[in-house]
């Protein structure tokens, strides 16, 4: 049999079947409960070459009755949200949420719901329809504005949040919303001030930290342990960081040994040689070096008529001898 005849025969048979049994051959899915009658009469809802018009929906489903009574007039359980939502809708927008054959789930609608279908008053009251979608978190509990202040109608995220929406009293309570953002480190455990003292509302970093916020008596090393260089000087020194460093920056360090004693060639010894008390750099001795024995020093000074020579540094600012070395 010629292919053309097969094609024509097939077309005729199938067309006849499609007209006789449209729900079997053509229906893309079962209809919603209540629409059983139109099941074999597609044209109850579908206009040829024009699709299913919303005008046909409202023949039975009057917008002012939606949520209040069903199509046969029986009162429905109260659902204010549904009533208000449908009341504010344009009459030709049923298809934006409801695609029969795919169930009542709006997310399966062929058409995208357009907020433009809503009246202006309803469009500005996002909460009327989206009440159940408000996340349960401190941010949304404190935010008093309309959803549209942060969110667009296309999707929830990304949102454009502005701290200005909060009342002044809430703005100070950063931790109410940002508890999870707080780093679990020593610095943040020690600082009890509000986040806003160091951080802006645009981003966390850079932060403007001031040591004045810390309660007194804090050891530098409790926060700056990782900052301590692993070198001889710092390993030997048991002093607080503040003995040599300021709080603005590490370098240059504020400590200058030359102010007290110039460490010339003969005096490049370890700190412990002169500062025997661990961590105490205010006290020193010159007698640990074989050059300076107490007996020699005593003899040399008495010879000069000097009898108080316990504070060597008062006269000797370097390895050279003499009063206030030149």
């Amino acid at each position, binding site marked *: 049999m010629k292919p053309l005849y*097969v*094609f024509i025969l097939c*077309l005729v048979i*199938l067309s006849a079947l499609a007209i006789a049994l449209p729900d079997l051959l053509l229906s*893309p899915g079962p209809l919603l409960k209540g629409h059983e009658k139109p099941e074999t009469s597609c044209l109850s809802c579908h206009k040829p070459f024009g*699709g299913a018009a919303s005008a046909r929906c409202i023949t039975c489903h009057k917008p002012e009755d939606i949520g209040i009574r069903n199509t046969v007039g029986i009162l429905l359980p109260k659902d204010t949200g549904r009533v208000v939502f449908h009341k504010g809708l344009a009459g030709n927008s049923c*298809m934006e949420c409801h695609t029969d*054959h795919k169930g009542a789930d709006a997310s399966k609608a062929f058409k995208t719901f357009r907020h433009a279908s809503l009246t202006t008053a309803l469009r500005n009251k996002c909460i009327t329809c989206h009440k159940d979608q408000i996340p349960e978190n401190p941010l949304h509990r404190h935010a008093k504005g309309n959803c549209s202040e942060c969110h667009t109608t296309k999707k929830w995220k990304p949102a454009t949040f502005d701290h200005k929406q909060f009342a002044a009293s809430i703005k100070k309570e950063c931790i109410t919303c940002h508890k999870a953002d707080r780093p679990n480190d020593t610095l943040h455990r020690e600082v009890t001030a509000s986040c806003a003292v160091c951080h802006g509302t645009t981003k966390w970093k850079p932060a403007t930290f001031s040591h004045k916020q810390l309660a007194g008596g804090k050891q530098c090393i409790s926060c700056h342990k990782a900052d301590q260089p692993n070198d001889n000087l710092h390993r030997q020194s048991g002093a607080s960081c503040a003995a040599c460093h300021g709080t603005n920056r590490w370098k240059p360090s504020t400590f200058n040994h030359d102010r007290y004693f110039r460490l010339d060639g003969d005096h490049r010894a370890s700190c412990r040689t002169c500062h025997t008390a661990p961590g105490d750099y205010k006290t020193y001795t010159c007698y640990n070096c074989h050059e300076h024995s107490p007996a020699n020093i005593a003899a040399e000074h008495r010879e000069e008529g000097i009898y108080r020579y316990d504070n060597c540094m008062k006269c000797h600012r370097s390895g050279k001898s003499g009063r206030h070395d030149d």
Partner: protein
Amino acid sequence: MWQSVLIRRALPLTLSWLLLIAAGISLDYILHPAGLAWIGRHLGVAGTAFVAASFGYSARKKKIVQKGTVRFFLRLHCNAGWIGTLMIVVHSGIHFNALLPWMATLFMMTVTASGHVGQYLVRKLREEVKMKKKEHGIDNNPDEDPEGQYYWDSVTMKALEKWRTIHMPIVSVLLGLTLLHILSVIFFLNWR
């Protein structure tokens, strides 16, 4: 064993057909979670366009299209048909509702399988013709002996006639189903 036509030709063609199904299902599983299921809807149009392009081979054989070699159009027929079939498999997705489009999908898979069988037959027959020529000491260059080549081509064509008696009717049924499916979509769709 590895040199037999069954292994060298039939196995790859079988894998090609199975790959079609696997690729179609995989793509469906990717598109849905990504929220891109709407692409499948449009792939119906694209797939039909590809399958329509594959009919260029028939047009060339009937000399409706006069330029280009038959060999080129045969390759176009095979490749465009495979790609078009893949697109339509994704378009069909894994939903079972109306009978008409599903019959069209099944017939399309049958036609594609039949096409793979045709490919196998063509290759097998070419190998056999080559062997027979070698046996009889015939070493004709197609360019130098077009008549001789024409004879061997018609031998191949005759052998494929039986296969065509099955392939062509199922293609006709497929065309009928496809046309009716397209018409029904146009008839019922919400264009606005």
